[in-house]
């Protein structure tokens, strides 16, 4: 019998995660004490009431009231790990797509030269910029600073940052990625994931059975921003084996499942969904009924939220009423 290549599924809606934090929608009146300060995502109505202008969670710092949007482009902070794509090679700088409101910039002076050489960048370096990164290349980088206009400057001045290869990019909603102590995560089952804050997650193969966390991300990149000709001496890029590739597929589908159901994307949720998915074939993971099965364990209340944060959320909700 010939293998089946088609699977028709019923267009049933997927389960959506419940928010533990109260969510406001545009136009909702935000309770505020007299003398409040109007923050991002809010405006004052003609009758003096403070209303939300975006859908999101209310954040209060003393008298300042803001609404942090649920869906937005990435607005970074200094020190964030991001994955970005080169879209233009300019003079002394690369323009990169960081999933933000504006394109980011990687300065020629903020990359590591081959061999870790420390010197001023010369005019010759400017002419050879395509030997480092060309258009469409994917890099991992860190947010270094912000320019006056709000666009971000990135740097790759560490061995853990640089050009990415032998893996897949998964784009998720950036608000689902939370700050972690370590954004370069090595899973026990032999897959490395860069949980980039801008929602561009990079999934690649890693050695199996090693420690859960990488001390400094070393060994994760075959190529540390060195030109193609010179990269071979470190560790020749080896294409992943079929088993590794299948694991990468599984993690990739787990990330897509988490994103479509609006669940937080973190090492723990990914590992949970991955484990729950092992009873299914990789290609079946994105069938609607399979998605609802595999994300079910990840939807259980998170321990850190059930205690302190949930109590805080309750108090805040109480304040709102």
């Amino acid at each position, binding site marked *: 019998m010939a293998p089946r290549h088609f699977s028709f599924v019923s267009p049933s809606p997927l389960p959506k995660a419940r928010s533990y934090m109260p969510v406001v929608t545009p136009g909702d009146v935000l309770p505020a004490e007299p003398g409040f300060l109007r923050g991002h995502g809010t405006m004052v109505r003609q009758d003096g009431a403070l209303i939300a202008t975006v859908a999101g969670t209310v954040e209060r710092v003393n008298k300042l009231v803001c609404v942090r949007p649920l869906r937005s482009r990435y607005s970074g902070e200094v020190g964030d790990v991001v994955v970005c794509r080169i879209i233009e090679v300019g003079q002394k700088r690369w323009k990169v797509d960081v999933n933000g409101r504006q394109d980011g910039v990687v300065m020629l002076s903020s990359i590591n030269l081959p061999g870790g050489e420390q010197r001023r960048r010369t005019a010759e370096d400017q002419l050879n910029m395509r030997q480092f990164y060309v258009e469409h290349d994917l890099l991992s980088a860190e947010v270094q600073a912000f320019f006056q206009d709000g666009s971000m400057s990135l740097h790759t001045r560490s061995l853990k940052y640089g050009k990415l*290869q032998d893996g897949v990019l998964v784009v998720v909603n950036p608000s689902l990625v939370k700050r972690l102590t370590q954004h370069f995560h090595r899973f026990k089952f032999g897959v490395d994931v860069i949980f980039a804050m801008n929602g561009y997650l990079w999934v690649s193969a890693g050695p199996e059975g090693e420690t859960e966390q990488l001390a400094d991300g070393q060994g994760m990149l075959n190529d540390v921003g060195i030109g193609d000709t010179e990269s071979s001496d470190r560790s020749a890029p080896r294409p992943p084996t079929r088993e590794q590739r299948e694991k990468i*597929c599984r993690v990739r*589908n787990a990330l897509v499942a988490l994103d479509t159901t609006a669940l937080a994307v973190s090492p723990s949720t990914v590992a949970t969904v991955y484990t729950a998915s092992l009873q299914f074939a990789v290609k079946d993971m994105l069938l609607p009924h399979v998605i609802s099965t595999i994300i079910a364990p990840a939807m259980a209340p998170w321990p850190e939220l059930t205690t302190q944060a949930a109590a805080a959320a309750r108090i805040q909700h109480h304040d709102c009423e």
Partner: protein
Amino acid sequence: MASAAEQRYTLHGVAADLRDDGRARLDFRPLSLEVHLFPQASGSARAVAGAAEVLVGVTAELAAPPADAPDMGQVLLSIDCGPAASAARLPEYAAAADERLLWLEEALRALFSRESIPEALRTLCIARGTQCWVLRVHAQLLRLDGCPLDLISLAAAAALAATRVPRVSGGGADELGGGKRQRAAGGGKQDLDLDESLDESVPFDCSTLPLYVTLANIGGYAVADATAHERRAAGSTLSLALSPAGRVCALRGGGGFGLHLQLAGEMMQLASQLCAQLHADAKDAIAQALADAEGRRWPAGEGTAPGFLA
């Protein structure tokens, strides 16, 4: 946009018969169909495959049949894409971005031509040479990812299967119970009576509609339902439209590269096998979608949004 490293990864994956999302080379993404979404349209359908989504509406109107085919109605097709799926993001069938929609329309028009579906078009004829139904099929591309031809042809087939045209009786004065009657002032000599109660209506015969299957040449392998990401690593594509009876209705190339003759032959062979399978599965899926719509008691009552609009 894809870096050389990503393209290499895609090529290796296709060679290993394990693509980025775990599919084998000839697997399609999960497809879903929904029909009867808009009470205003004579027929409507929505098809989703992964991140790609198409909405199709059909409206019926009366007109005179074309002079060279007096016993046939017409199916006219138009395609539009919204801002989220701009024409510039369509796969490169034609050189210029603004010609890609025209290219798609032209390719799909071949499916509804007189040569492709003569029997179905004959059922649209009311009075030879004077009156026939013209079905205007409009496809709106909501999201693009990969092979729009396949998805549009599937959605159009589902929408046409769901299409109800009012029963027309030729010019008598007798009255049938129930339905409101109306005089259709066509250009012809005889007056026609429309029975507007849609319960009585005859569905358009769609059992002979062809479907497209697109195969992409990725590293010398034929790959079905390539995503936009995979198409960046792909060479040429080949789209074959087959009727359920196995007759070739259209063949289109795309991608802007050449194709080795031997590979082209293999791809056509594979595409025709896939297409036969798709026809069998799509028939069941459309029947299921129609049954689901009955279950929702289509047309929806006041205040209830149908289907995915709910």
